[in-house]
């Protein structure tokens, strides 16, 4: 691990000022915020991250989970994964978020990992994690050995010729289906970013993963109330029954009236370079009968643009079945 200086600001503005001294807020930045540390310390041990300064934000008062007047919730960026997943408000109003968080990692990691940190969770692409290899995300312009290499776990949606790394988070798939807003304080004040506009497709700059600018600190996330009668579910498919990243996952928000689907949101994990929202699937569902046939049509639409690599073509069919089954579960619960 490279040497670094640890600072512990007492206020959000002091933290922002400290990180704003870096030329970027993206991976590889010389000044990094640290919260739970479950991702960053791992990468620092691998020398993938070599910050010269760590800004410990744990002293900031950002860990509460609160009800909002409109029936939504506000989740502090420092709220631990365990506390969010077990919170009565979340289990009652947004069970998909609770299920998604509990399907990821382990109790030990979830006790440390934070809401804000998980929003910035890094890919598990083996080439990104190993500095002996080229990687356009870690070292722009060096190449992408994953495209010709071990890509079984990697993405089939949102890829480019420069990067096919999967976004590994479960939490963020649920937050995408729940249309979360990400609240950020930066050098120019506060702003709220819809989660679907927060992540950037790799295109030719896979090193730039989010719209965050130097100094930007995620302070909290808000989730708006769901339409009356809408239910949410999360389904994750993986190689092991526990403690494994998704091969494919789906977060669904759905409401039916009679046998008709009157509201639908579909998000997918494990298959995209970013947490993947499928408006195509939603369009295919709206107004249709809540039947297996409709779900299969929607799943086809969701994977329509998928591009397989040498080892991960199976993910396309798996993701379709995942979406179909998640829609079935959502109907049963609705």
């Amino acid at each position, binding site marked *: 691990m490279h040497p670094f200086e640890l600072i512990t600001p007492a206020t959000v503005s002091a933290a922002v000022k400290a990180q704003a001294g870096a030329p970027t807020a993206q991976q590889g930045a010389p000044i990094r915020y640290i919260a739970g540390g*479950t991702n960053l*310390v791992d990468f620092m*041990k*691998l020398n993938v991250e070599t910050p010269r300064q760590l800004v410990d934000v*744990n002293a900031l008062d950002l860990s509460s989970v609160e009800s909002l007047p409109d029936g939504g919730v506000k989740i502090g960026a420092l709220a631990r994964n365990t506390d969010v997943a077990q919170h009565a408000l979340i289990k009652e109003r947004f069970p998909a978020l609770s299920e998604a968080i509990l399907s990821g990692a382990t*109790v*030990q990691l979830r006790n440390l990992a934070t809401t804000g940190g998980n929003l910035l969770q890094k890919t598990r692409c083996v080439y990104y994690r190993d500095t002996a290899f080229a990687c356009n995300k870690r070292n722009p312009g060096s190449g992408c050995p994953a495209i010709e290499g071990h890509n079984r776990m990697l993405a089939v949606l949102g890829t480019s010729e420069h990067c096919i790394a999967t976004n590994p988070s479960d939490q963020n798939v649920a937050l995408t289906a729940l249309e979360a807003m990400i609240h950020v304080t930066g050098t120019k004040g506060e702003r709220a970013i819809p989660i679907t506009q927060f992540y950037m497709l790799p295109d030719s700059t896979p090193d730039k993963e989010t719209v965050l600018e130097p100094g930007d600190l995620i302070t909290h996330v808000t989730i708006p109330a769901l339409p009356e009668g809408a239910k949410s579910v999360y389904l994750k498919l993986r190689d092991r029954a526990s*403690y494994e990243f998704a091969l494919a996952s789906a977060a669904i928000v759905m409401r039916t009236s009679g046998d008709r689907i009157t509201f639908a949101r579909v998000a997918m994990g494990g298959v995209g370079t970013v947490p993947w929202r499928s408006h195509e699937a939603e369009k295919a569902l709206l107004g249709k009968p809540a039947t297996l046939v409709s779900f299969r049509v929607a799943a086809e639409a969701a994977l329509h643009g998928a591009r397989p690599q040498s080892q991960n073509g199976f993910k396309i069919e798996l993701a379709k079945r995942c979406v179909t089954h998640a829609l079935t579960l959502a109907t049963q619960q609705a």
Partner: protein
Amino acid sequence: MAPFDEKDKQPLTSLERISRRVFLTRASAASVATAAGAVAAPLTGSVHAEAPPVAAGGPVDDSAVPGAIPVTLKVNGTAHRVMVDPRATVLDTLRETLLLTGTKKGCDHGQCGACTVHLNGRRVNSCLLLAAMHQNDEITTIEGIGTPEKLHPMQAAFVEQDGYQCGYCTSGQIMSAVALLKEPVGKDDADVREAMSGNICRCGAYPNIVAAVQAVRRMA
């Protein structure tokens, strides 16, 4: 580096008098100090009477640890004031500075659970914690939950149910299992397996580990 080459005989005139652990501690401390500066060293005048945390043959001058900062760690109810490099993890500080070697280093990347300790009552991977970030937190290790004379019920259950083979993962397993008793975990074996999935056992003692955990839960 070779710590015991021809011109470096002085610290080890009689290898026979040195226990394996002290030997290894000295050897690793010597290599670390040469390679990159010791990652964690005791503050001069540090309090730890029964096992002086002195790694390399005498009190270590603060200046030997460039960039070290004073940290107070509360471990098993005792406050320890130590100098640590900001890079030192809680795991390494426990083992190398406080000589609490019951907590084990497996993968060192938060994947295996061998280093599980309690942080303010909740189980965490100590290999992912930077010691300097956890002043004033209550850290509990395997040494803090029971003694050979008075085992914690979970330790006794692991013995009773034969919940280990080589034993390397065991302290982490037990720390996880003790924390689990206070967590919202269903009553079935499958629930225990899910809740214990962050602790890997390469010997595959899982059935007996689940039996030990369930035995203690039934006692409660």
